[in-house]
């Protein structure tokens, strides 16, 4: 047990990333507010980034850093567009509950 607590290996980082990813996933799954869902998606992206960086360190390959940088940029773009959509939806419907945004059904 002491090993597990004091010897921080790559597994720790990766499991942390997995936990974050799953929390984000749960957030996407259960929350109704579109903003929270967007944030949860960001969380999942960060978890993925963390995995990338851990493996980058593990295999001594810096190109994963580049990749993570691109992921951050894409996340920023996604957040911008996502928030714009939220605003547009809000303007039309006066709420951003994804429960009520069921136009995909039709």
């Amino acid at each position, binding site marked *: 047990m002491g*090993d597990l607590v004091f*010897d*921080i*290996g790559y597994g720790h980082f990766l499991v942390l990333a997995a936990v974050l990813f799953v929390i984000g*996933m749960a957030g*996407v*799954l*259960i929350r109704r507010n579109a903003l929270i*869902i967007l944030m949860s998606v960001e969380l999942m992206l960060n978890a993925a980034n963390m995995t990338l960086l851990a493996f980058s360190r593990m295999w001594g390959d810096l190109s994963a850093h580049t990749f993570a940088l691109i992921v951050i940029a894409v996340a920023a773009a996604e957040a911008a567009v996502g928030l714009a959509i939220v605003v547009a939806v809000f303007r039309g419907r006066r709420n951003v509950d*994804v*429960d009520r*945004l*069921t*136009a*995909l*059904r*039709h």
Partner: protein
Amino acid sequence: MDPQSAAAFVTADPHFAGLPLLAWIPLLPLLGAFINLVFGRWLSRGTVQAIAIAAVAAACGLVVYLVFFPLYDAFRNGQGGVGIEQQVYTWIEVGSFKAQLAFRLDTLSSVMVLIITFVGTWIHIYSTGYMSHEPRYAAYFGYLNLFMGAMLILVLGSSLPVMFIGWEGVGLCSFLLIGFWYENDAYATAGRKAFVVNRIGDFCFLLGMFLLFWATKDIASSDASGVVRGSLDFATLKLPQAGAAFVQPFWGGERLAAAAGILLFIGASGKSAQIPLYVWLPDAMAGPTPVSALIHAATMVTAGVYMICRMSFLFSASTTALIVVSTIGLLTALAAAFMAFAQTDLKKVLAYSTVSQLGFMFVAAGTGNWTAAIFHLMTHAFFKACLFLGAGSVMHGMEHGGSHTPGDITTMGGLKKHMPITRITFLISCLAIAGIFPFSGFFSKDDILGGAFHAHPPGWPDLYGKFLWVGLSVAALGTAVYMWRLYFLVFESKERTKEAEGAHESPASMTSALVVLATFATVIGLIGAPALRSIKLPGFTHSLAAWLAPSVTHQWHEGTPIEGEAPSAKDVAACANVEEEQGACTMDSGAAGVCMGEEHHLACEPASDLGTAGLLGGALGIGLLGIFIAWRLYRNGPSPTVAKLTAEHGPLHGAYEASKHKLWVDEFYDLSIVRGFKALARGLFEIVDRFIIDTVAVNGAAFVVGIFARISRWFQNGSVQRYLAGLIVGAAAVFFITDCHHKATFDYEFLTGGQLHLRAEPGAGIVGSQAVLSWDLDGDGVADRDPKNPNKPLSGMDLTVPAGDVGAKVTLWIEDPIARETTRVTRTIEMPEPTVGSAAPRPPSPTPAPSPPPAAPATGFSRGGN
């Protein structure tokens, strides 16, 4: 068409107004029908009847021209298959199958078209008088013309499909004309009955056609086109190759011809009112009397006989089919004659008489006596049409006298005074139908009887022919009795009612037709008069058999394909001549009729003049006996003797009731078939429609779809989270499935320098990464000790050991600390070709590197903090 038969045909190809001349024969009445049916309501009666009669008369004239000039020339020149064949256009073309709308006037169809157009013309003329008070005058003549057109198509068609057009057309016209006075419910019902019963036959006709089409699916064509892929042309079906197909075993050991023939015969029995489908014909008397004369006596009902003669090449290939035809014909003749006895309606008696006479014709056809069948068809057309028209005349007169039941013979009597012309013509026709010399019926009926007497179909006892002969003789006796009963009751003795006293002769338009038909009924029999060796009749005797010979088959297919066309007219004539000279063989009226039972062409039954004359005399005697009986019983009106015999407790009461109620056949059909079908329909409605279709199929389908819709609706609710949940479940499933199949093992690889590199592959997940490994390299079955640290077992994912230390077998234990189970993997180490190993290249661990690093030993590097 195949050139062989076409070459034998008349070379002349006459056209008129762009259409083949043959096509004009049915087209003229059809044009008349079109005008009268479409524009009739604006035309005057005179115009209507002028158009109708002109159309039919023109067709008659055209037929007379074609038959007596081109066709007769060809016949006299002895050309092989005598006939004219003309194509109008290609009707159906599917693949190699081609159905031409083509017409064929050969010696067989020429007889038919002559009868049809000639009798038809006179019946049209008669109708102008009989139907003069009819408000729907144009419709009547339109239907009549339509019938003529359809009948001519039926007869002239050069293939079964074209014949079927006419076949259905006459059925339609029959329906329309039986129910012409559709305001009367019983009449409309009679029309429907005729239609439905005919449909049963038509269905079998179609099946027979399909069977023939199938049978000829790969016979060799006679022309350059090679193989015939199914054909229904008479010319093709007549080919020897097709004959070979007919005699092939088909079903139940019978030949294909038996199945096809019986199916076609069922079709014929529907149209020609044979058992068991005859029931519609007596009811069909609901139509106008000229219609009964034309359709239900002279022409349409004989279509079945014509069709069987047309298909003689098929029927002659199967004894079974012929036995069926002749037996059914005999039974019909007897049953209908029996039923005619107790009928009191004038037209009903004639109707049963027609059914009975049609039975005679089928017996003739069933004994291969095609000539006799056609001969009797012809004479019957005249005398029965004359009888019907006479009956119509009588009813016309009785109506004039004020009768409301003009057909009831019990109310008549003594009409000879009031209707002399009608009486004379009726008398002639009665003589003809009773078979009295020299009226036409004598020759034709004797032809049939003689043919039956000599018939002995292959595989059947000789007595069969005698049996037919006896049966037919009884039927002929019955015919004479009931016809003359009719005659005596209607015309002789004294008027029994006021209405009969008030009757008077019909107008000239009606009597002229009677006279003409009676004349023909008298003399027409001479063309088929039997040839006796000792008595030389004028040259035209027995000409009918020679005339028909090219169109019908005179031989039996006995398993082997026949070798040529049907014998030409010359052959027949030659045969007749030779036999006459030798005196060994009599061409007893129907040449083919006596030829049954042998394989050769025209194997003639030796029959002496005495035999022939005896048969003739016997037939005459039967007719005279019948007339005598009728005279004894009915010369003074209804017979008290008969009344006594058929009274409540009389000896013949049962028979009388049976005859009067037509053997209860209608009741039997109603009980067995109609009710049965109604119950079946009811059951089908309840089970199939209500339950299977409505409940199970429709609602069940909706229910199943609903279930799936419910399931898919759960996913497709538009909520993106629901979709994502599905995605996640799917991802979990992927993980789950991929975890199920890992298998622990290890790889080994020979390195240069005699080293062996072993690498454990403990599998994925928990088992793989936390497993405690131990190796047995020397193959003693016990885990080895680590050489560096003998207290510990040899462990580690990657091992590099000298190859020489390794035994033949290496065992790896993988202990899963979580699940607490041990997997054991044993592999046989195969000494290699150099550098070849089974392990895939991997990122090499530091161990095998040439200069091992000081730190980081091969094992335990997952421990941090060193």
